[in-house]
């Protein structure tokens, strides 16, 4: 079965520290990859997505992610976090040729807490 693993369940950082959240997926074919963020009490918002082309994708709010096909990974990075980045981060996958069955398969999420 397809699955998405996020290695860090809780991450605590100080402001200005660098961030890297790990994401690995298990699926042998082509995939579309997403990172979503959920701020406290809010809905999920799309941070960035990868479909094809340059494996380094840039998203909103200074986030970027790198797709490494050989490692089945799509790690999220930000060089310098801010207190306002405190949120839950979800990695998600949709197999590229899903025949219209576009169910997002989510990882368990990583809770990021940034201290001033």
């Amino acid at each position, binding site marked *: 079965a397809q699955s998405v693993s996020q290695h860090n369940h809780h991450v605590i950082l100080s402001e200005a520290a660098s961030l890297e959240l790990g994401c690995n997926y298990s699926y042998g074919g082509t995939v579309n990859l997403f990172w979503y963020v959920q701020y406290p009490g809010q*809905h999920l918002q799309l941070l960035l997505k990868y479909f094809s082309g340059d494996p380094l994708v840039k998203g909103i709010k200074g986030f970027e992610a790198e797709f490494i096909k050989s490692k089945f990974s799509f790690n999220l990075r930000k060089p310098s976090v801010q207190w306002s980045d405190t949120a839950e981060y979800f990695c998600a996958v949709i197999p590229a040729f*899903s025949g*219209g069955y576009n*169910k997002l398969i989510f990882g*368990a999420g990583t809770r990021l807490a940034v201290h001033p």
Partner: protein
Amino acid sequence: DTAVSQTPKYLVTQMGNDKSIKCEQNLGHDTMYWYKQDSKKFLKIMFSYNNKELIINETVPNRFSPKSPDKAHLNLHINSLELGDSAVYFCASSGGQGSNQPQHFGDGTRLSIL
């Protein structure tokens, strides 16, 4: 202008009751979804409709019945509510059946069963 709106935002009710959650999107999208987020924040798809037609039906108890009166609406009716139904339910929509279409989420409905 809220793109994907759900009502109600909070729903507190007793076991055994029947309740509905409504979802509307004004993005002109063809496809809509229901996801369940449990107490550990784990998100899992429940249903998906494309142009009012059910296309995804995960392993969900048949007490849950989605209804799509038109492509801008996808409601979720739950019969005989159980304690385990307590969760946050998110509606989402996307612009087509292409798997590269990002899904846009509503604010969620927090359902608490007493």
